[in-house]
Structures are given as structure tokens and as C-alpha cells.
């Protein structure tokens, strides 16, 4: 059986706890199958936190200051709003203020659908991009997870790892799709990468050819050759994200891309409303249909301009 994202996280954690003298702090670690099977049961260095959503991240920061490189797990990203103060006010400022970073690895788990509704269907990585001193990434494959973990160990800044439950059982790597004559370039973030793959297939049947560039690092977001070249050729793009669209990662990246390439780039994320528990009231990652609709419109506009 191939190694899934959940397997990868569990193995990295086990190694960190057993060989690296690390810590993993979180609430209800033993619940829901050891957090969807991402935590090694009974490993040393597991810290069951009380329901201390605001002070809990402070404990992790203190552990980092004395040399532990702790992992902090938040089972739902909605808890980030409580956790955020010590992370952005203290940890993210530490390197600039005191010349020494605070290396905490924050596993924040996004989820949606299945009746999770207003409280538990949320994805909030965007707010952390705002803060100097934070690294923000959203790995969705086993290899990517291994890479961001290695990056964490090499540098001391705090890292917000925006995980998504939709990735946990996946073992697939997700290479970019690039055509010489694509009509549009899609940039996909978090679970939107899975729906974007479906959208590309859907649009192919309508003879709309899409590039698909996968984005793992939201901050720093590098406008390198891999990212820019497909957009320069396709002359239009869409950034798709599982988080809210307004003032979110999709708008931020779309701005950078648009400015750098001088071509229109749309942002697409969650609608500007609360998610409901009933299936017809959900508000999650843009569906393949919603992505396809935006792409059709962009391609239509592009054609009409020529």
C-alpha cells in the first residue's frame, strides 16, 4: 500500500519525538483515531493540552525558546483565531526583535462538508500571510509534506502548516500540468488542488486547455520561472483556494501574478458568507463546476478582446 499524507505526518512525528527529543502539543490527541491517524500513539513527547486555546500556543513557544522545536496541532482551523495572539505577536516577531527565531510547527487542520457547518468547516491560512516573520504553506502530498518538514528544520521562524482533511488519505503526488498552447493557467492552493484537477478534466471536454500550477508555499510566495512562464503564455489566470476569497491567499497571489505578468488573474475562494450545516448551505472549496464557470468566462473575455 502506498504511503498516504497521514502516514507521512505520523512517521515524521514519530521520528521527531523519538529521535529528536521533540514535543507534540495538542488537545484531544487521542480522539478521532489519533487525529485521523496523523499522530503516533503513545510516543514520548506527546503533550495532552487542557482546553487552553489561547495559552496552549504560548506553552509551545516557551518550549521552542528552550530548544524543543515543538509541533502544535489544532484539530480545526477555527481554533486559530484563539491561538493567533502568541503566534503572531510573539513568535513571529522574535527573530526581528531578539535575533533568534521561535521554531514552532503549527499543524492547523482545515475541513469542510459532512455537516461541519459554521464552526468546523473553515480554512484560515490567509490571516497568517499578513504577518512578517511567519512562513505559511499548505502541503497536500506525501513528498510535499516531507519537503516542508525539512524546510522547518533548517530555519527557526514559526511555520503555519495549513493541512486539509481531504489530503490525508491521498498518496498521489501532484505534478503541474503545462501546455504550450493553454487557454488559461490555474493556480491551486490546499484542497482546491483536488477540485482544480477535476475542473481541468471537465474543461478539456469543452476544448478549453488549462495549465495547472500547484502552490505549496503561500509565504514566501516565489514568482519564479515555474510559476510565471505558463501565465505569460496563456495570458490569463485564476488562483483558486479553499479559504475565503476576500483579502485571502487567492486575492493576494492573484495580485502578485497579475502585476508581474501584466495579464488578468482572477481570485476564487470561499463565498463571503458563513457556512451552514445543511448540504445546500455549505461553503467550502470551490467545486470543479464553479472553477469551470469562472474559467469559461475568462477565456470568453480573452477571446472577445482579440
Amino acid at each position, binding site marked *: 500500500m502506498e504511503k498516504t499524507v497521514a502516514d507521512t505526518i505520523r512517521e515524521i512525528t514519530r521520528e521527531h519525538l523519538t529521535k529528536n527529543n521533540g514535543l507534540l502539543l495538542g488537545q484531544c490527541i487521542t480522539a478521532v483515531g489519533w487525529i485521523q491517524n496523523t499522530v503516533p500513539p503513545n510516543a514520548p513527547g506527546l503533550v495532552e493540552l487542557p482546553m487552553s486555546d489561547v495559552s496552549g500556543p504560548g506553552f509551545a513557544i516557551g518550549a521552542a525558546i*528552550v530548544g524543543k522545536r515543538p509541533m502544535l496541532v489544532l484539530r480545526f482551523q477555527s481554533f486559530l483565531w484563539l491561538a493567533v495572539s*502568541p503566534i503572531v505577536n510573539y513568535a513571529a516577531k522574535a527573530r526581528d526583535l531578539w535575533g533568534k527565531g521561535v521554531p514552532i510547527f503549527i499543524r492547523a487542520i482545515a475541513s469542510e462538508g459532512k455537516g461541519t457547518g459554521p464552526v468546523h468547516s473553515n480554512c484560515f491560512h490567509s490571516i497568517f500571510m499578513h504577518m512578517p516573520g511567519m512562513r505559511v504553506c499548505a502541503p497536500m502530498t506525501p513528498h510535499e509534506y516531507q519537503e516542508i518538514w525539512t524546510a522547518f528544520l533548517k530555519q527557526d521562524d514559526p511555520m503555519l502548516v495549513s493541512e486539509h482533511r481531504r489530503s490525508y488519505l491521498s498518496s498521489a503526488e501532484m505534478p503541474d500540468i503545462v501546455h504550450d498552447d493553454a487557454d488559461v493557467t490555474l493556480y491551486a492552493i490546499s484542497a482546491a488542488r483536488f477540485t482544480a484537477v477535476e475542473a481541468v478534466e471537465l474543461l478539456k471536454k469543452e476544448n478549453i486547455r488549462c495549465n495547472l500550477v500547484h502552490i505549496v508555499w503561500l509565504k514566501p510566495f516565489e514568482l519564479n520561472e515555474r510559476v510565471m512562464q505558463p501565465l505569460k503564455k496563456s495570458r490569463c489566470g485564476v488562483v483558486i483556494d479553499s479559504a475565503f476569497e476576500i483579502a485571502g491567499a487567492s486575492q493576494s497571489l492573484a495580485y502578485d501574478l497579475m502585476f508581474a505578468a501584466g495579464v488578468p488573474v482572477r481570485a476564487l475562494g470561499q463565498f463571503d458568507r458563513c457556512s451552514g450545516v445543511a448540504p445546500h448551505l455549505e461553503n467550502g472549496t470551490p467545486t470543479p463546476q464553479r472553477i469551470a464557470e469562472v474559467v469559461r468566462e475568462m477565456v470568453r473575455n480573452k477571446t472577445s478582446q482579440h
Partner: protein
Amino acid sequence: MSQATLQSPSARSADFGALPQLAETSSKENSIEMFRRMCLSRFFDEQAYQASKEGLLKSLIYLSAGQESIAAAISTVMSGSYIFTQHRGHAPYLCFGGDLEKFIDELLGLPTGCCKGMGGSPCIQDPKIRMIGHEGLIGEHVPIAVGAAYADRSSRVVCFFGDGAVEEDYFFGALGFAATHKLPILFVCEDNDLSVLTPTRDRRTWQIHDIARAFGISAIDIADDPWLVQHHAQEMSKKLPGFLNVRTCRYYWHVGAGQDGPPEWDRFALVQEKLRAMGLGARAAAVEKETKEHVESVWKRRLQTQSAK
């Protein structure tokens, strides 16, 4: 010691929690050393006050003056510990032996400052004495201090904060975690009865030492007499976690160079008086003069360095 034999002054008084003969039975060296540390902090703050008045300091300063006896006493007990303070950290920094020149340079915004000019008065750090910087949000360092105590059981931690910080919700989470894991941390509340200028009675009905006790942490509520603080810190340090609520008086404004009015008491003057009564007046005066001259000369040199640039 039976409390019943003592008068029971109000909590806001210089004699609150007093124990008889503590100073008199303490060694002369110990008494003089605590006073020397108080002098270091007081004369430093007077220089900072003056420099601020004259416009030589451009950033906000949070002076410890009036409260320095607490850090002077605690530093004799908890040396070698990780030190966490909040914005009013001048006294802990100096009493534990933080670098004087780097401190002044920090207030002057120089790259040679202890935070390279980034943090100023509320953010001072000195890795050599294991003093960890604060970012300015009151009480936010308390969970961080507790996390440090959890992760490094081979060290002790001392954490200073004020009576406002203990009202922060995350403060309770931190106390609870320290109690649950019996962490080697001494909590020290420098209780000046003021959040900026709002007195405690307008903010809450409860006492923080009662909360600490409810968590199972040994806690005591006393005034800032250095011999008394030292005595209780020594007792508590044998079985941490412990909680000291120390009633004290801020001599200057919450922030900046100014005074709201005369303090309820001035511990510095009371200690001078006590040392004289104990026959240590001449030694105390010599320490005072020597420390004052030292602090003033370093300030003068750093100010000249700055103006030369």
C-alpha cells in the same frame, strides 16, 4: 511565625505581611547586596527619566522605580533561572546582572542595543543571564514561561508580571498548566494596584493569590520589603511552583517620564532608613554613592557616543 501576634495592616501598606526581625537576622552582606541592586535599578531609572525629559530618548520607557526591591530580592534567590518579565522589566534586567551598556544603547535606539534598537524599554533581553524578551502584550509571556518550564525541567523559571496581567484569560490557563505538571516556576506579581491608572478595585473583586491557591499552587500576599520577599522566595523555591503577590508602588508614570503624585510608600527610602537603624548607614551610603557614580558614568559615556554619531 504566628500571624496573630502581628498587627494586621491593610494589604496596601508598607508593613503588609511583615515578619519580625527578618532584616536584623539577615547577614550584613546580604542586606547590603540587595540594597546595591536596588540602587542600580533606581539610579538607572533616574538617568533614563532625565534623558527622556531632555528628549534624548525617543522611544517609550516603562520605569521600574519604586518597585525595584522585588527584583533585588528575587534575583538573590533565583539566579541562573530563565527570567521572563513584561514591559516593566528594567529592575529584573539590572538586578539579575543584565548588561548595562547594551541596555542604555537599546533605549537610545542604537544597533549595539540588546535588541538592536528594535524593542526598546519593554522588550529588553539578555541571553547571558537567560532573560527572555517580552513583546509588549501584558501576561502573554506567562504561558510562554510555563512552556519553557515544561520543556526544560533541568532549569528553573522566574516570571514577573503585574496585577493587570493576572486578569488576562490566558493567565489562568498558564497557572493551571504549571499546577498540573508541578513545574519549576516562581510566579511574581508586582502588584502596584494600577492598570495604567485604573485601580484594582474598579476592575475585579477577587485576589490572584486565592486563584493560585485554588489551583493548588502555594501562594502568598505580602508587601515589597526586600527581606520579606527574599524570605518567601527562598521558602517557595524549595517546592515550586509558587506564587508571590507583592504589593508595591510605582514611583513614576505607567509610561514615560512623569509622576502621578506621591507614591503610597517609597520602599527605597524605607530600606535606607532600615539599614541606618541596623547600624549599616555608612556602608549603605557608600554603596549608594559608588553605584550612582557608576551608573551615571556609563550613561554619560553612552550618551556621548550617541551624540558623536
